[in-house]
């Protein structure tokens, strides 16, 4: 059953790609290819759930495809199926959404290309979690990277898309090279198949093991968005069309997480605690970086991109914790850590999809993508506002939505770890807990700022004033992840039960984590019953509303109290930059703000000032310290290499036998 569903999924995506290019009418091409993508995602969802429910595991091989590289080998196990589920859960709403979102591209070839690439992207992402040998994995990885790169640069009117695409392309291919090197080292000269690597990993010399783990962390971490390799993410995600951004943030970065889990938990034996500690520290640093930038960014989609970085950090905190516990031999806590990380992966995929789709609807309706230009959209886009509020509350991790469940579990995890283990962790885990709590608080600030500035009060620009509601299909597409947020929040055991299969398949014993509708942690003796909390909140709100209705005197509507001024204007509202100002002052060492003040004076005298312009910005110190030297070095090297291009054809002809000589010498030396 799952075989058939998976085959259907891949076929549907392939068919969608082909139909997008060949179908005669542009509108028909859009409808058919996106419907095909949606059908493919639904089939993938069915396949994934079947595998998870039944804890199945099956393989499929074909020597015919990719023959020079060793053939295609797929293995469907619960871990791969879970990430397939995440791709499906993100892809289905995104494809429905694109039906309405990309209607304006119907007559252009670019539209067909975007739909075809979308299908290819989905297909690549479906194959990556199922790959069982290096060839399949890297092939699907590269398909995923190329198609997403082309989608990122697909909009010629998007400013900065080309530069964003360049950053993305360079970093993903650097990651590809690191992956290739790591897999070759891990293969130790044998066949580059995952089962062989799994069997032989125990015999890997420790130095090699260290290099392999470092390279894989760098490659998968870069794809996931770990600091300091995250710099492509806030550039590329906002430049892509919104449904593609949703897929990239919801599914593609999770495949970096998948790669990390597959290698560190499945292929390799338990590593030393230092690696676990390093992953935990990287996770904390990533979470803090992501949330601090998301609080201060004015661009709507960049806020969401940095928030993705923050949540990836939280996922890696869970993973680092699991690695640590595994190194110390505490299987139960390691299992719990892995479950929490995977649960947050799913929860984040759901609410980030919703938020990116909502951001797309806002940009589509209000024609502006900066928070400083929005406002008052709750009256002009009422349905989008409600859906966005659900996503924003999940982002802020408040009960009873799904963001809160995984955050609560992360807290419990760190408390349980601090209680049960070595004194060596006596400093590390409390600091990690404090950092995660700070991240949670700052995420709430970012959420309030996002929703409050964009949707509430008065419109700040004309384009926001003339905003129109998103088409019905886009709203329907957003309803799916919104319902997912609510259901996963109220009944978290739905997801936790599936994760039991994943974790036990990886060899970690799973303690009982739930009783029916409540989450129970026997290790720490605490319980969470989201449905009861939701019922209590609902009852309280209803009683409060009833009291307000019955007891009041006359009600009338009047202008806002603005201290007696003549008129209320949008200039009086708080701006997005102003909202984040206190935090920018507290964390000024992190933001490194720069101020540029220029005066426009009257030509007659410098004492008559006509206008003052203040330009406030952040110094991109991460790029400046880490990337600018690399870029400069690369430029210098290529400058030096340019010296070889003297223009003399005799020299170029002499290169041919010279290269042949060098290759013969190398071949001789290898032999």
């Amino acid at each position, binding site marked *: 059953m799952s075989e058939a569903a998976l085959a259907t999924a891949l076929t549907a995506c392939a068919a969608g790609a082909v139909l997008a290019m060949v179908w005669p009418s542009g509108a028909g091409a859009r409808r058919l290819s996106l419907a095909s993508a949606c059908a493919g995602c639904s089939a993938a969802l069915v396949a994934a759930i079947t595998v998870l429910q039944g804890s199945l595991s099956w393989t499929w091989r074909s020597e015919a495809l990719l023959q020079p590289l060793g053939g295609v080998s797929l293995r469907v196990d619960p871990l791969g199926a879970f990430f397939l589920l995440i791709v499906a859960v993100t892809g289905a709403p995104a494809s429905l959404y694109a039906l309405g979102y990309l209607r304006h591209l119907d007559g252009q070839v670019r539209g067909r290309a975007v739909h075809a690439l979308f299908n290819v992207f989905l297909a690549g992402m479906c194959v990556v979690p199922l790959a069982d040998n290096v060839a399949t994995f890297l092939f699907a990885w590269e398909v995923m990277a190329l198609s997403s790169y082309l989608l990122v640069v697909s909009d010629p009117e998007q400013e900065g898309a080309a530069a964003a695409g360049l950053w993305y392309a360079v970093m993903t291919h650097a990651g590809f090279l690191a992956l290739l090197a790591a897999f070759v080292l891990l293969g130790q000269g044998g066949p580059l198949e995952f089962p062989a690597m799994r069997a032989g990993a125990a015999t890997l010399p420790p130095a090699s093991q260290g290099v392999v783990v470092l390279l894989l962390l760098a490659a998968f971490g870069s794809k996931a968005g770990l600091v300091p390799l995250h710099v492509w993410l806030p550039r590329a995600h906002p430049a892509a069309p919104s449904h593609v951004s949703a897929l990239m943030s919801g599914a593609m970065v999770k495949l970096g997480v998948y790669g990390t889990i597959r290698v560190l938990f499945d292929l390799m034996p338990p590593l030393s605690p230092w690696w676990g500690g390093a992953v935990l520290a990287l996770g904390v640093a990533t979470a803090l970086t992501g949330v601090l930038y998301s609080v201060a960014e004015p661009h709507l989609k960049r806020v969401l991109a940095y928030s993705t970085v923050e949540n990836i950090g939280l996922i890696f905190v869970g993973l680092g914790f699991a690695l640590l516990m595994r190194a110390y031999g505490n299987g139960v806590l390691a299992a719990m850590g892995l479950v929490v990380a995977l649960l947050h992966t799913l929860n984040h995929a759901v609410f980030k999809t919703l938020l990116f789709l909502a951001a797309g609807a806002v940009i589509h309706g209000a024609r502006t993508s900066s928070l400083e230009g929005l*406002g*008052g959209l*709750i009256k002009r886009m009422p349905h989008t506002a409600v859906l966005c509020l659900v996503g924003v*509350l999940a982002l*802020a991790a*408040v*009960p009873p939505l799904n963001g809160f469940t995984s955050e609560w579990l992360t*807290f419990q995890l760190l*408390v349980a770890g*601090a*209680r049960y283990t070595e*004194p060596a962790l*006596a*400093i590390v885990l*409390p600091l990690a*807990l*404090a950092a995660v*709590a*700070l991240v949670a*608080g700052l995420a*709430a*600030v970012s959420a*309030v700022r996002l929703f*409050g500035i964009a949707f*509430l*009060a*008065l419109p700040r620009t004309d384009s926001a004033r003339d905003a129109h509601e998103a088409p019905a299909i886009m709203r329907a597409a957003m309803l799916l992840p919104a319902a997912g947020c609510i259901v996963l929040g109220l009944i978290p055991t739905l997801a936790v039960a599936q994760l039991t299969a994943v974790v036990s398949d990886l060899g970690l014993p799973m303690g009982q984590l739930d009783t029916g509708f409540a989450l129970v942690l026997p290790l*720490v003796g*605490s*319980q*969470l*019953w989201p449905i*009861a*909390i939701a019922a209590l*909140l*609902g009852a*309280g*709100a209803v009683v*409060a*509303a009833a009291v*307000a209705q019955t*007891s*009041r*005197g*006359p*009600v*009338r*509507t*009047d*202008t*806002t*109290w*603005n201290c007696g001024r003549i008129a*209320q204007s949008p200039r*009086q509202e*708080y701006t997005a930059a*102003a909202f984040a100002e*206190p935090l920018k*002052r*507290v964390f000024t060492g992190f933001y490194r703000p720069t101020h540029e003040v220029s005066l426009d004076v009257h030509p007659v005298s410098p004492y008559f000032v006509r206008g003052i312009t203040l330009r406030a910005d952040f110094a991109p110190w991460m790029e400046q310290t880490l990337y600018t030297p690399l870029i400069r070095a690369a430029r210098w090297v290529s400058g030096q290499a340019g010296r070889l291009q003297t223009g003399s054809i005799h020299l170029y002809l002499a290169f041919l036998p010279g290269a042949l000589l060098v290759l013969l010498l190398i071949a001789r030396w290898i032999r």
Partner: protein
Amino acid sequence: MTPIVLAVTECLCLAIAAPAVVGYVRWLKARLQGRRGADFLQPYRDLRKTFAKGMIIADTTSWIFHLTPCVVVASTVAAAALVPVISASQPGDQLGDLFALMALLILGTIFLALGGLDPGTAFGGMGSSREMTVAALTEPTLAIAILSLALTAGSTSLGTITNTLLTTPANAIGPGHALALAAFLIAMLAETGRLPVDNPATHLELTMIHEAMILEYSGPYLALLEWAAALKLTLLLTLASNLFVPWGIATSLSAGALALGLAAVLAKLALLATLLAVLETRVAKLRLFRVPELLAVSFTLALLAATSSFFTR
């Protein structure tokens, strides 16, 4: 008395006592300022009057404005349902633990901030921005204070913490417990908007944090928000007293034990409220940009408490 009835009664006790706690603090501050002041029942009269007033809804607001008071009240009541007041047997433990309580309080804060941004006034935006900043910066302190409690009690569940401390009072001896209590109280001042973080009696908008967000509310909505703020103060004071100094709380459901528990919690509330009034008379309000320094001090105290718990185990 079944646990559910007990839990509802406890919650109602907190809800009904909340304005009296605020009234007592105001009365004591008045006496310390050398004036007679209103008696401690004055907030009830204020609330009764405000509930009966008319309401004016600003035309720039949306349904968020109407939703905010309901959500703030609901989240504060839900948080109050988790607090052990009279009895140590806590049916609220099945709902959630200390982290859930903090999250419920943040839910109320988030909606209050949205309600402040909704009318589109500068003061509302200022209040929302400052409130969210202070709330975010108190999170680490509260998390580490919860951790230090959980390290000795073995759980983050409120009933378990209370019961463990009652059965092994030796845990309370040592610097960790006192440091955690100090850190918790400073964080509580920030969460509830009392001096030195925020002056609840100010009418200068540039010095407001909590008050600025409710400037646009009137009538029953205003009364609900004021009462929810009083309830938040009361529940955090009760939490401080019953988690750190639980002796006197009822461990059985007999009438005598419950009466003693009620008397004990009232006495502890009175003591903490007295200390709060004395503190508010002694200190002046901090500049907003000095508040993070105060919160950093409380965070350091909490971290010291947590690490000392490790070494005394």
